[in-house]
């Protein structure tokens, strides 16, 4: 008894009472937003075998989320142009706090945490001009906004942090939209880029596409176990003219390697990649096309391996050697070499992204 009391006193003195970790949220491996049959929206925690482990209602249609590296906390972002982001306590299924944008700013659906987990970076635009901003929010100060810097382009969409570093990777999609809407205003002149930013917001490296494919909007990112950045694009030109929709790049390399299937198979993507994932220890990359109802899988050299037919497939994530896919019909499906390994189905429409929690931990 005495020994136990001393032990507890020691813990308190050291300030090391165990804090809640992701295991307390039911050990989710992924989070994803969905629409439910009654039209409501929610964010779900999903285990490594596709089971639900928590559900948190969202005020409007969600898009993606940023998971805290170790606390069971996720920030869910509204679909662009975002009017909200909510911080969710995933262990208790509660909204902890709401983030609202600065005047004249809009959330663009994605965010990332700093290495120490105390700063949240949000992808934003200046509503009037489409200029990209990265918003900075302090978690220890109750998610108070503490600053912002330029994203390095127009219409940033997904941002990620390179594992083990403070470098942010930003997909500046290049598309300017009207304030509060999704109308595309500059398709003739759009110029997307992939930008690496340091902690101060200074550009470490910036990659642009060659002029003939300037209408390939760089929108989504995945980072492999070997720190290769995979970026997925959406083609705004004529659909039959769509170039490669997957690029692979490592910080420091002068140019990205572009990956596409043979022309006739590539055409099945309809010029649109909705999500991207790196899986199987960085040896494979996948992009999804909900418009084409298929996923294309490539090897680390960007060589096309295979395609998987799934209507309305969009969310992609890695689970070890498996590729996990979600679709608008409530399926979570894990596959290996194109063959299903397990699946779960729920009465809900999974929205665009399946967010891996592991990637946030590194």
């Amino acid at each position, binding site marked *: 008894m005495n020994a136990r009391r001393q032990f507890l006193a020691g813990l308190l003195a050291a300030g090391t009472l165990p804090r809640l970790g992701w295991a307390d949220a039911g050990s989710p491996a992924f989070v994803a937003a969905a629409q439910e049959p009654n039209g409501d929206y929610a964010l779900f925690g999903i285990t490594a075998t596709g089971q639900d482990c928590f559900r948190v209602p969202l005020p409007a249609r969600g898009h993606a989320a940023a998971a805290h590296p170790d606390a069971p906390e996720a920030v869910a972002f509204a679909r662009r142009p975002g009017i909200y982001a909510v911080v969710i306590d995933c262990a208790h299924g509660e909204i902890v706090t709401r983030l609202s944008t600065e005047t004249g700013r809009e959330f663009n659906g994605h965010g990332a945490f700093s290495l120490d987990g105390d700063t949240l970076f949000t992808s934003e635009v200046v509503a009037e001009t489409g200029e990209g901003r990265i918003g900075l929010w302090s978690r220890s100060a109750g998610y108070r906004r503490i600053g912002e810097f330029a994203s390095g382009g127009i219409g940033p969409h997904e941002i990620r942090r390179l594992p083990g570093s403070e470098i942010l990777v930003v997909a500046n999609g290049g598309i300017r939209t009207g304030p509060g809407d999704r109308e595309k205003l500059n398709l003739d002149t759009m110029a997307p880029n992939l930008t690496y930013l340091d902690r101060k917001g200074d550009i470490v490296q910036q990659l642009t596409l060659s002029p003939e494919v300037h209408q390939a909007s760089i929108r989504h990112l995945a980072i492999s176990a070997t720190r290769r950045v995979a970026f997925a694009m959406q083609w705004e030109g004529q659909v039959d003219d769509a170039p490669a929709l997957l690029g692979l790049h490592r910080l420091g390399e002068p140019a990205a390697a572009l990956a596409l299937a043979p022309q006739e198979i590539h055409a099945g993507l309809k010029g649109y990649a909705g999500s991207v994932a790196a899986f199987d220890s960085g040896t494979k990359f996948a992009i999804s096309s909900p418009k084409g109802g298929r996923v294309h899988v490539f090897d680390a050299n960007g060589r096309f391996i295979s395609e998987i037919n799934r209507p309305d497939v969009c969310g992609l994530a890695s689970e070890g050697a498996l590729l996990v896919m979600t679709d*608008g019909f409530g399926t979570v499906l894990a596959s290996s070499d194109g063959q299903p390994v397990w699946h779960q189905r729920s009465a809900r429409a*999974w929205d665009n992204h399946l967010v891996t929690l592991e990637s946030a931990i590194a």
Partner: protein
Amino acid sequence: MRILAVVFLLMPLHAQADGVIDRVVDEFALPAVAAFAERAEALNEAAKSTCAAEHPALRAAWNAAMDAWLGIQDLRFGPLEDAARRQAIAYWPDTRGHRERALSRILSGQDPILTTPDRYNQEPVSARGLYAIETMLYDPDFNHYGPSDPGCLLVRAASADLAAIAAEVHNEWQNEFADVMRTAGEPSNTRFLDSTEARQAVFTALLTSIQFDVLERLGLPLGTFDKPRPLRAESRLSGRSQRNLELSLAGHDRLARALVPDAAANVVTREDFERIGWMAAELDDPDFSGVENPIRRFRLEALQSAFALLRSEMNRELSAALGVTMGLNALDGD
């Protein structure tokens, strides 16, 4: 009683017989792929007998194959989506002129493919299939070849290639994929993981096809009011843009009826099909060149809106009748 039990045991262990899937397979898919294979083979035979671009028999055979294609284009799952067959059969749209360039390259003799026509399936999809043959038969830049010219060999090679793909599609549907659909949800079925997935695939395919009519068949030639694009109309060369649209609609109608035969369960959809069928038949604009004329353009725009409305009403009514939903991702990604 005992006899009945034995009979049940002898029946194939299908997870659950799905009348919807049986109707789609038996009343829509199998007859349509059989007809397409037959028409494509007839085109192949016609081309063997005469390759002359303006020969009525050859043109009639090509038109019949095109008609039959529009009867299977809604099968956006299974054999037509494997091995890029849809592209090889029907590579359209082609707004950048890939087709003309590929055909010119082959005809110039730089590419020796015409000496080995059985390898024509290795040519780019833009030079294969129905639309490539259409260009050869109807485009004045291509259809002046004689019986011993490369053009003649190309028409024959492309027709044989098309017939071979059509036969593959028919064969795979008949001998494999029909069963894959009927056994949705069985443990051995890796394509349809549970019983709803087969219905879901058909439903999604149908809505996607209507969207294709809205955005491509009508949307491409309509362009914008300030910049209409009549040259982008499908089958403008053969003057059958309107016919394609009408047959496309008729195919959607047949598939929708196979999915939900009970008219009371989709009253608005039925009404929409009837009204749009009438609107399309009354267009009197065979190649959609009316997009440049304000009054005729208005009729095409109204038709486009009607297709979009059909899609949305059908989504509502059929999803309720079938117990499936349209996902969020295919139409409004981010």
